[in-house]
Every structure is written in C-alpha cells, then in structure tokens.
C-alpha cells in the first residue's frame, strides 16, 4: 500500500474513566499535530453507536485510510472498532488501538499531568505505527464434521453423547481397557440414589445406542497434524489380547497364576493378570495386563471360545476430525508412604478405598471390618493432597472431597450407629447443591467436626494401635484421639501422561499441570488452540455433576464450530519473506504450535508457515536470525517506528 497515510485519531472519554484523569482537550490538540493525522476527535463513549458513527463519518469525509482509537484495552473493543472500519469500507486491520484507560487514567489517577503526558506519548507511538499498517485478509478453512473425544469418563461420555445426538460422527478414545473413568469406581453418589457404576452404565448405554459413536478402548493419541476444522489424527491401539469372542465365562481367571492389586478396587482386593475391570464393564471382554502376565498360556489353553491371542500387536488408526475434545480426567492423589501413616498401617486408608469397602457389590460386600473387627473410632482427615496441607500436597481445593467425606461418614453412621466418627478438616466446602444439608445432617448425626491448621499427626504405635494428635483451632487445644481406622480424603491431581497429550494437541497447562482454558470465565471449555475443547477434571478438580455439565458444554461449543461450513482465522500470523529466508530452521524449533516447516524451493530450503496452525505468538519472528520471519500487525518496521516515536522528542 503505497498511498500517503491519512490518519484519524479518535479519543474516548469512557465517561469519566479516562476523562477523569486525562486532559482530553489537550490530547486532541496534540494528536491533530502529529504526522499524517488528518482529523482528531473525542467523544464520551467511542464504542457507542454515535461514537462509531463519528469514526465512520471521519473515514468518509476526510478520506482516511488509517484509524487510531485511544480508548480502553484492545481485548475489550478492538473487534468493535475493526467492524467500524469494515463498515466504513476500509480494511479492518488498518486500525491501531491505544489503551489510555488501563495504561493511563486508571494507573495514574493521582497524577493527571503524568496521565495526560503518557496518553500523548502512547498516541504518538500508535500514529507512527499506523502509518506503516498494511491491509490484511482473513484466512478461511473448510470444516470436517467429525470429532475426536479423548477420554471415556463421565465428561467424555456426555460430550460424545451430545455431539452424536446432533448428528456428528464421534470417535471416543480411552487409554484404559474400559470406559467409565474414575466415576465407575465410586460407590453410592451423594443425593442421587445411584452408584457411580450405574451412572456410568446409563451414560454408556446412551452412548452405545448411537450409531454415530465409535469407541476405541486401549487406545492412545499418537499424533495430531492439521488445524481447526481439519485435524489429522493418529491413534495407537494397544493389544488387549482377548477378542470379541469372549463370552465372560471366567475360566481364564481360574487358571491365571498371577495376583496383583486390583486398581479398579483401589487395591482393596486383588485381581489376576487376565481380568474384567468390573461388572458391566464396556466392552464386556476380558483383558490381559501385559505388564504382569507371565506368558504361561494357561488361559489360552482353557478358553472355550479361543478368544485369547497373546501375540496380538499394536495397531495404528488414522482419522480426520474437525474438532477435538480433551476429557482426559484426573488421578486421585496417592499419599507417599508415611504421610499420615499411609502405607505404614493397614488401618490408614484413602477415601476411595473406603468407598469400595462400603459398596455392597464391592470386595468386602459393604462390610467395614479391619482384622475381623468393626472399627469403633473412625477418623477422617480431609485436604490430603490439597490446600498445601503437607509438603507433597497441591495448593488447590479438590472440590469433591468434603461432600464425599461427609456422605461416607453418614453411610458409616447408618451401618454402625455406635461408631465414633470424627472429621478433621482444614475447612469444610460443601458448596454443591444439597451438600450443605448433608453437612448439617452430619452434625445432627453426631459426627464430630474438628478443625486443624497444622496437619494432624497420625501415630502408628508398635502394637498396631493408632493415635491422631492435632491442635484444634476452635477450642484452641491439643486433641488426642485413639483411632481404629483413619480415612484420608485425598484430592485430585492431573492424570499421568497428560503432558504427552497436551504436547501432541498443543494445549497449555497451569502450574499444577491441569490443562488451561483459553479464558477461565469467558471461554471455560475451550483451549487456546482453535478447535480444541476441554471437558471434565482435565482442567482442574470437579465433582461428577460439574464434569457432566462441562462435557455437555464442551460438546455444545464444539458444535458451534462443527455446524459451520468454514472457519475464519484472524490473519495476525507470522509470514516468511522467502527472499530473505536462509532455511536455517531456527524458527521450527521455537514454534510451540508446530506451524512451521521447511520446503525446498529452487533447490534451497525455505521456511513456510501454516496459516491454519499459526497462533501469532511471535516466537519465530523474535528468534529469526535474519529478519525473514515477520508477524503481520507487528512487523519489525512497525515496532521500530513505535520505539523511535517513543524515544524521539
């Protein structure tokens, strides 16, 4: 664009938000005299309809080809003003915004003169940059109507169900040999007279009844290429060693010589190397745990259906989808040996182990017995693994443990009215619907609550008896409790290998390792990578209700993309000047989105940016050793003009 820049500067009062600290009149006069500025005007709310009209009028009347708006943050209104430019018939990317609210009036409300000076300076910089702005064209892509859901827990199942109901083809993958996730291992859920396994069963039935859903268990994500609307997916299906011919007769289990703790019962009972994870498991096929299998082939010999093949190999699957939902869930926090006596005494168990024991269909048939005797004194300790209670704990609240603890305490109370039940807590957060009543009911049921600040000391005596000692914050006294059973209410942590998944899909994570939403409030189920959605506990602790909600929310968000024929992407991306690119490939290593590759052109290597993948982060432009890589909207020349405007008097 070689035409002479004709710039209009529009300065917003934002009511008194800006005008209260910045001398608008002075700034307008100043802006009028800046190079290439044809018109400078102010208005009380530039974003309002009459404000927008002022800009449109200016563009037409003064024949402007660049616009500078000095108002609030571009995050807030850049989009608004771009539309104004488009409506007035000029390219929307010929806009430069100056944030004189957050950066001037708000932070310098005590010094009007400084706020005004700074506003002038920022406008001078923006005008300098605006002269060099170029018109940009938005990028569009066709949308593939399939979707990949990673994780077969309640969030993933809900998302899959909803998307299939809307007519999209869903590929649901689960790393484990069974769908259902953590919820399948829970006992009776609070309020609902339904067990975790039954809830999962109901969701599974809904999912399985849809012809639009393809379920791959034992399957992991291996690679993702492409971008929003057109992801190329590679999956790896690990061998299960048992095929669909399995009729669940259980003969194999009888002959298997291996005994390992059953992770589906949180180690309360053991299982064989060939096993069915739990009753009503989907798919209803036994599975061989290849890590523990001794390859004795006894099961192969006895199987009447000839369903076992220990030579089965991994299989690669390739798919194309338009959107990806990550619902990879969480893992329960596992206390290290010795933390609150865990692993030292069999009388110290986790809340999940207790849930399995209290389940009538569980390994103890609902009986709570230790060394053959019912426990008399039961002490729950909450916030294990959460709220920085111990050095190994995470800093966040795991949200579900308080209610779950109280629910289990009430179940014990029902079964064993004589037991002394104590809940030692840092804080009680029974925030979910009906949970507060549960808390009050626990009080009425003579479950005793005590508050600690310093983590309680669980003392395992040489005779096997246990004492819990802690300082009670309310009565301000040291308390000493004998305990037959200590239950640790453990929190949630990010799932194992989530880093692998997020690196493949290119999603950021928070300090604890949970995946990060594009915006916690405005875009809670979307990842910053376009076309990727997040559901369930993979973004942080949630209870079952919240997980299902977020699964449906992610499905709904994904469908707003999938129903479109094509997607548009902001063109503020990196671009290679092929004349200057030396093919050194430095940019490829620094790109967090895998958006750059080398191509060979006239026998020379040249970098190429995939506009569909580039997020415009600028890392490549900063690292490019020759200046060949530039970012639209932030080219070196544009930034340099801003810096010079700032430094020149």
């Amino acid at each position: 664009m070689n035409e002479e820049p004709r710039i209009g500067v529009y300065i917003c009062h934002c009511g008194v938000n800006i005008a209260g600290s910045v001398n608008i009149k002075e700034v307008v006069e100043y802006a009028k005299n800046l190079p290439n500025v044809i018109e400078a005007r102010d208005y009380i709310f530039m974003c309002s309809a009459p404000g927008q009209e002022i800009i449109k009028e200016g563009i037409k009347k003064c024949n402007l080809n660049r616009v500078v708006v000095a108002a609030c943050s571009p995050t807030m209104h850049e989009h608004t003003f771009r539309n104004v430019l488009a409506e007035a018939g000029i390219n929307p990317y010929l806009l430069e915004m100056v944030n004189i609210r957050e950066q001037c009036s708000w932070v310098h409300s005590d010094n009007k003169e400084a706020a005004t000076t700074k506003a002038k300076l920022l406008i001078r910089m923006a005008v300098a940059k605006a002269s060099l702005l170029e018109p940009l064209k938005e990028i569009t892509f066709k949308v593939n109507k399939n979707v990949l859901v990673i994780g077969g827990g309640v969030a993933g199942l809900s998302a899959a169900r909803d998307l299939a109901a809307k007519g999209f083809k869903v590929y649901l993958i689960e790393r484990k040999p069974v769908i259902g996730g953590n919820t399948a291992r829970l006992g009776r859920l609070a309020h609902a007279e339904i067990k975790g396994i039954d809830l999962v069963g109901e969701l599974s039935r809904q999912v399985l009844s849809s012809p639009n859903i393809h379920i791959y268990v034992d399957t992991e994500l291996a690679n993702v290429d492409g971008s929003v609307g057109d992801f190329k997916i590679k999956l790896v299906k690990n061998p299960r060693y048992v095929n669909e011919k399995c009729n669940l007769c259980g003969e194999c289990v009888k002959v298997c010589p291996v005994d390992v703790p059953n992770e589906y019962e949180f180690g309360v009972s053991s299982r064989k190397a060939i096993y069915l994870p739990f009753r009503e498991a989907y798919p209803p096929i036994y599975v061989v745990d290849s890590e523990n299998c001794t390859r004795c082939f006894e099961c192969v010999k006895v199987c009447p259906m000839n369903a076992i093949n220990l030579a089965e190999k991994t299989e690669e699957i390739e798919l194309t989808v338009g959107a990806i939902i990550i619902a990879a869930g969480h893992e329960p926090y596992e206390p290290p040996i010795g933390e609150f006596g865990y692993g030292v005494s069999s009388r110290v168990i986790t809340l999940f182990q207790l849930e399995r024991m209290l389940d009538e269909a569980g390994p103890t048939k609902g009986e709570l017995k230790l060394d053959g005797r019912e426990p008399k004194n039961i002490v729950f300790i909450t916030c294990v693994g959460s709220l920085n209670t111990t050095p190994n704990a995470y800093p966040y609240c795991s949200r579900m443990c308080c209610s779950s603890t109280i629910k289990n305490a009430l179940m014990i109370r029902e079964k064993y009215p004589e037991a002394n039940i104590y809940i030692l807590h840092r804080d009680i957060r029974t925030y979910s619907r009906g949970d507060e009543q549960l808390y009050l009911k626990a009080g009425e049921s003579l479950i005793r609550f005590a508050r600690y600040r310093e983590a309680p000391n669980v003392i395992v005596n040489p005779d096997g008896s246990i004492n819990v000692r802690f300082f009670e914050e309310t009565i301000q006294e040291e308390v000493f409790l004998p305990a037959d059973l200590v239950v640790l209410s453990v929190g949630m942590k990010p799932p194992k290998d989530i880093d692998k998944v997020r690196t493949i899909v290119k999603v950021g994570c928070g300090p604890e390792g949970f995946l990060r939403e594009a915006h916690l409030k405005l875009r809670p189920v979307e990842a910053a990578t376009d076309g990727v959605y997040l559901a369930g506990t993979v973004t942080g602790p949630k209870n079952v209700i919240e997980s299902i909600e977020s699964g449906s929310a992610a499905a709904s968000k994904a469908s707003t993309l999938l129903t479109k024929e094509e997607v548009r992407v902001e063109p503020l991306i990196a671009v290679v000047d092929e004349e200057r690119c030396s093919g050194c490939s430095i940019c490829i290593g620094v790109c967090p989105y895998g958006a750059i590759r080398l191509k060979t052109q006239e026998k020379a290597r040249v970098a190429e940016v995939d506009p569909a993948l580039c997020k415009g982060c600028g890392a490549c432009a900063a690292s490019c050793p020759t200046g060949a890589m530039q970012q639209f909207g932030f080219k070196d020349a544009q930034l340099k003009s801003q810096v010079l405007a700032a430094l020149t008097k």
Partner: protein
Amino acid sequence: MDKPKIAFYWCASCGGCEEATVDLAEKILDVVNLVDIVFWPVAMDYKVEDVEKLPDGSITASFINGGVRLSEHEEMVKLLRRKSKLVIAYGACSSWGGIPGLANLYSREEILRYVYHEAPTVENPQKIQPQLRIKAEEGITLELPEFLPRLLPLDLVVDVDYYVPGCPPTPEVTWKAIETLLSGNLPAKGSVLGALDKSLCYDCPLNETKPEKVLIKEIKRPHEVIADPTKCLLIQGLVCLGPVTRGGCGALCIKAAMPCTGCFGPLDEVIDYGGKAISYFASIVDYSDEQEIEKTLGKILDPMGIFYRYSLPASRLRGKITIAER
C-alpha cells in the same frame, strides 16, 4: 578515456584486509589493468600530499579498512571522502568496528594504563606514556596522532557508499565487489557488495544435516570437543553464528569444522547484530527451567566477545559509556 582511479587505505586494522587484497593473486593484475591505483600506503609509495593534490571527487572509489581510532585516521578518511566519488568500508572493522572495536568496553584511560603500565609483560619503571606533543632536545616539537576516546566504524565518521564484509573479505568477495563497482550498474547506496542476501546457513554444506527442530541442551566450547565435520556444528553444541550472519564466505570456517564467528555481519533487516544473535541463540536453548537455562547459558563466558565480536561499536550498546560522557 582515463582508467578509474582507486585508493586503498587502512585505519585501525590488523593488516589482514591488505593481505586479502594481495590474495587476489594474479587477479590483482586484472585490477591493475582496469584501474589506476592512486594511493595504497601498504604497497606503494605515495604521500598524503599526493592525495591532497588530486581534485575533489577524482578518485572513483576508496577502499578503507579498519575502524577509526586515531585522529590521523579521522583526517585521512575525511580527506579520502572529499577526493572520492565512492567510499567503501572494506572488511568487518571498517564496517562495524571489528575486533579492535571490543576495546570500546574500556575507556581510553583504562587502555593506556593497562598497555603501558599494568600488563604483565610490561616493564616501564619510568612510567613513560605516549604524549600528543613533546619538545625534543633540538628544540623540535614532535607530534603523535591522538588516541580517540573510542573506536568508530567508518560510517560514523564519513558518509559510506558501500560495504564489503569479512574478516577479512575473501578474494572472491573482493573480486565480486570490484566487478560490481566497475560494471557501472551500481546497487542502492548502503548495499553490501560481493556477498549474499541470505545467511550462511543457506550456503552451508551442513545445513541439510540439521534435524527438523534445532534445539540444544548443552553448549560446548570449541576446545572441548572434536567436532564432527559432517554434522551441523550448532546441533553439536557449538555456538555457530551462521544463522545470523550474512553468507558469501563459502563457509570456510565450517569446512574446517570451526563454528561461524560472524565476520560477515548482519543481514539488511537486522538492526543490531549482537542483539539478534543473542535472541536467536537463546531461543534454541531447550530448557524451560530457569536454573537449567542459567547453567547452560553460563557456559558462554564472554558474551560480548562471542556475539558482538565484530560489531560492538556499530551496535546499540556501542561500548562502555562513562557517566561523564552521558
């Protein structure tokens, strides 16, 4: 028609650029056939007066190597500028300051103190130091050129038309530059002559041995490793400035398994060579943990000497600035 007149001059340089000119070997005879050399102190007996006598603008091109460090350099380059149609900064020192430009990290006083008194090889009990002017015994006043406060690249002293890069420029680059000048088809003022518009990687035989992602976990200094001459040196942990340095040298150092030190300087779009070099190199250190990064980059003991080796006086940093100067 008269043959074009050419002058050569050297300022603060090591003499390598003069050697490079002579390295044209038999081609120097072609040069002599095509031009008249009117001034070349290192090889021919002309005096300053001979230059002064020439009409202004009568020299077609003056090739000046070395940075401006002495008042004599300043006088001479100003004289040559006046007498020449074109002034060419020849070599890294003249273009950006070069190795002698690293002395800008010290003040003039510090340099004189160290060189004449403190260096371990110096014995100077009478504390003799160069003087601008002394009265000799016979009543004659002797004068020495002044040691300027800092070294300046040529274009900060006089207007420069073209640059020929290298420490020193190779004979090929020199010949190409001369050919360009004699072709009559002159490029835009300020252009770099005789070299490429792409970085060394473009020209480097090892570029194709790079993995898809160039990321390094460990930095090695050249003496710590016997580099594999068939593999990109950068990915072997050596600080190679090839990606950030103008190509055209023919990858001479690389072919001898030594990493590029950057003597061909930056490409046109780059504002500050050292800054760009640091920015590029820091980008490929493959750690996100701050301590690991510090440990890895700590291996670079002399960042100025590595990244600003040839360009400190022309950089945004310029060198050490005392409070008084500011």
